[in-house]
Every structure is written in structure tokens, then in C-alpha cells.
């Protein structure tokens, strides 16, 4: 975790740096606006920030941004459900069958590092230029962290908790469902969170690339129409959605790990 993650409460001592940071950002936009208005930077390449903000309303209304937003989120959630089901089951299988885990765990980790999204033309051939391509790319790109974290969570169950289960003569399935799985849940959720982030990035990216879908496609659309302020506004909107998504996931994860 970096020094800047807002995991702790906002103290008085945080005010100065936070204000400086925010101040610099605001200053940057003011300077940018001035440079554009005075013609130093061509307004046909970078629209003035004020115009971008002004076009927000238009973009929201005319481009059905709510519908698009839900489409993108829908794709994300579908992917989320899929990676949770297959990822956790996969992780449990790997944990259970040691030989499988030894054989395959490196491959799963390599999958996480592999540029899956680059194969999007292949997915398009298989699934067509539609939402399934998008969802499947998100799925393949996001599956790996869920599997790995599930294995990590289960393997990391504290021995004493397992001993407690044994001392109560729990059956294997009781041991798994009453002790190991609950103990592993926070770590599993970390995996799901990482997966969802990969998923969102890949999903929006692919929507843009194949010009289909929700928010990603919107940007592509506006860009092709040379609607400069609109394009910038749409980009800002996507960034905003992404940031909120990320923050929400963090909050949920913190709630699951109260003792940390």
C-alpha cells in the first residue's frame, strides 16, 4: 500500500498536502484554459476545459449515458459472477489436489501476466462483435487472480483453527465449509477485487476497440464524429466511473477485514 491510500482517517495534518495537491490540479486546469483561450494551444487539438465541462450535460442527455453505463456495468458484473464461480471452484480444486496445484499454479500466474486482451480479434471471430466477446475477454483476463487468491486463502488458514475443527471431530466437508472457507473469505475477496479491476479495464478497452457496447464505445463514437469536447467529456466520465468502482471495491474489502 502506498502512503497515499486513504485507509486512515483524514487528520488535520493531512490538510496541507491534500490542499496542495488539489490546488495544483486546479491551477493546472486554469493554466490550461488560459493557454487555449489565448491561442497558445490550438483549441482544435485540446478543447478548453470549460467547454468540456459544458458538454457534459449534452453528452449525458444525448448519448444515453445512463443506458451505456448500465451496459458496461452489466458486462462487468456478468464477468464478476463468472470469475467468482469459476475462480473459487478452480482455486478449491487446486488446493485440494496438490499435484494439480504444483503442476498448474505457475501457468495460472503466467496467465495473469499475459496480454490476454491482445487476442481480442480472436475472440471476435469466435463470439462475434458483441457483448459476449467483451465478457469473455474480461473473464479470461480476470480469472487468474481469483484462483490464485483462493488457493492462497485456503492454504493460509491458521493451523490452530484447523486443529479446533479436528478437536471437535468435524467431517471433511464441515471442516471445509465451517472453517476453511470462512477463514479464506477476506483473501478470496481480494482476488475478486483484483479480478474486477482487470475486468473493468479490459471491458471498457475492448468496447472501445471493437466499437460495441457501453462507455468504451461512446468514446470511440464521439471521436469518430470529431466531437472534441464530447470525446474529452466521455473520457472524463469513464475515468470517474472507474475511480468510483475502484473505491467501492476497496471499501467493501476493508469491511471484510475489520481487524486489519
Amino acid at each position, binding site marked *: *500500500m*502506498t*502512503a*497515499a*491510500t*486513504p485507509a486512515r482517517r483524514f487528520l488535520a495534518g*493531512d490538510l*496541507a*498536502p*491534500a490542499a*496542495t*495537491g488539489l490546488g*495544483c*490540479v486546479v491551477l493546472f486546469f486554469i493554466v490550461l484554459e488560459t493557454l487555449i483561450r489565448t491561442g497558445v494551444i490550438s483549441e482544435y*487539438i*485540446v478543447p478548453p476545459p470549460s467547454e468540456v465541462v459544458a458538454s457534459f450535460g449534452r453528452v449525458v442527455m444525448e448519448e444515453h449515458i445512463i443506458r451505456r453505463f448500465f451496459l458496461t456495468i452489466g458486462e462487468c458484473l456478468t464477468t464478476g459472477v463468472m470469475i467468482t464461480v469459476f475462480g473459487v471452484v478452480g482455486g478449491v480444486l487446486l488446493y485440494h489436489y496438490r*499435484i*494439480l496445484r*504444483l*503442476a*498448474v*499454479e*505457475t501457468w495460472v*500466474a*503466467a496467465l495473469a*501476466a*499475459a*496480454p490476454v*486482451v*491482445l*487476442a*481480442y*480479434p*480472436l475472440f*471476435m*471471430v*469466435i463470439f462475434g462483435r458483441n457483448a459476449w466477446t467483451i465478457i469473455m475477454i474480461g473473464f479470461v483476463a480476470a480469472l487468474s487472480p481469483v484462483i490464485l487468491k483462493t488457493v492462497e486463502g485456503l492454504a493460509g488458514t491458521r493451523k490452530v483453527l484447523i486443529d479446533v475443527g479436528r478437536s471437535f471431530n468435524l467431517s471433511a466437508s464441515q471442516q471445509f465449509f465451517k472453517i476453511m472457507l470462512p477463514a479464506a473469505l477476506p483473501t478470496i475477496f481480494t482476488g475478486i477485487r483484483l479480478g474486477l*479491476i482487470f475486468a*473493468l*479495464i*479490459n471491458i*471498457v*478497452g475492448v468496447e*472501445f*476497440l471493437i466499437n460495441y457496447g457501453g462507455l*468504451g464505445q461512446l*468514446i*470511440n463514437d464521439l*471521436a469518430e464524429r470529431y466531437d*472534441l469536447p464530447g*470525446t*474529452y467529456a466521455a*473520457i472524463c466520465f*469513464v*475515468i470517474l466511473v*472507474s*475511480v468510483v468502482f*475502484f*473505491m467501492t471495491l476497496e471499501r467493501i474489502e476493508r469491511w471484510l477485514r475489520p481487524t486489519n
Partner: protein
Amino acid sequence: MAAADQLSKARAPAVSAVTLVRVGLIVGVLAIWELLARSGWLYRDVVPSLIAIAKALVALLSSGDYYFNLGVTAGEVAAALAIGGGCGVVVGIVLGANRFLARAFEIYLYYLGPTPKIIFFPVMIMWFGVGSGSKVALGALSCFFPVALSVAAGMRQIDRVLIRVGKSFRADARQMVTKIYLPAMRHPILNGVRLGLGIALIGTLLAETKLSNKGVGFLIINAYSTFDMPRMYANLIVLFVIAIGANALVGRMVGLHTIRR
């Protein structure tokens, strides 16, 4: 690979069970593949026969054209990594060294990092044109954030004690930098760059697939548009091997393993 292999070597002799399982899995997948290909069950050529793919691979790797495109992409990725990674390293060092600046600005990097950068591509085209410039710019933008964050975090982990040791021996500024800071920074910086390489690769290539007439990304999308599936598979296979291989290679150099136990 290393950790799992060591684990299996500690247990079984000769041909380890792990190797058998791996070989078994690979053979199994290839067998199912070939069956699907020959069954005609899926739309033609979506799953081409392994032989067709092998032929396409050979054709690809023996064509000078491929290496030209590979060179173009490699150049773009290198430039993207140099610019984005370079800026990332500098920003990371500054934020890692100075607590105030970190608390002021790092939060923006942290939250802007995990966002899809490819959506900036239209802007990059506007600013840098339709040639390599826009691809490099996108690659640079993509890898800047993770590199900066990684380097900053790494810098903060440098043992403060080492710095105090240097000061206690009254090392002057130049000695502090060359004998303490730089050696200590080497690991977090290399680690950040390793991370940046993969991301710069993805960013640059995605840009190429969107709008380009050169480079590996272009070759992939070109194979798609001509529905030359064996060629597309061949391109993807080579690309993935290079990507995973480069990552592993740099990882080895930095002294890291792909699985943290």
C-alpha cells in the same frame, strides 16, 4: 516455475508426477483442439488444425516482413517504456523520498492508475498523428502510472537505517547518492520497470490494432480482417511467447520469481 519444480524435486525421483500431469494436460488440450478442428463442428477455421497453425508459424517466422513489423513494435515499446517508464521512475523517486509531495499527489496516481488508458487513444492521435507517435504516447501513458507507484512504494521501503549509517560516517552528498541511494534504489526501480514493460507492451500493441499499418498489432488485426485464422493464431502465439518470455527474463534479471510464496 522454479518454486514448484523445487517442491516436486524434493519429493519424487526421476520423472516427477508434476511433469507427467503437465505433459498430460498439454497433450489433452492439443488433442481436444485437433478433434474440434477436424469435426467441422465450429464455424470453419475458427479452430484450425494444428498442422495449419504450425505451417503458418513457420511461414511467419521465416518471413522478413514479420521481423520488420516486430522491429517496429519493439521500437515503439522501447520508446514507450523509456518515456513513460523514465518519467515514472523520476516521479516515483520524488514521491518516495518526499512525504509531503507523496501525500499531496500520490493519491491521484493511485486512483487514476487502474483505469483503461486505451480510451485516450483518440486524443493521442490528435496530438501525435496517426503514425508511431500516437502508439508510443499511449504505451508511455499506460506504463507511467504503475511504474511511478511501484517505484514510490519501493523507495519508501528502503531501510532508513542505511541512510542514517551513511550520515553517521559523514558521507558527503555525492557519496550518499552513489554508495547508498543508487544501490538501494536499484531493486525498486528495476522491479518497477519490469512491471512497466508488460503494460507498455499491451498499451502499444492495442493502439496498433486500432489504427496502424505497421507493427505486430497491425499484423494481428490484418489477419482478422482477411480471416486468415492460422496466421492470426501464429501471430498470437509468437506474441504471447515473447511477452511471457520477456517478463520472465527481466524478472530473472531482477532476481524475482513469478510466484510469491
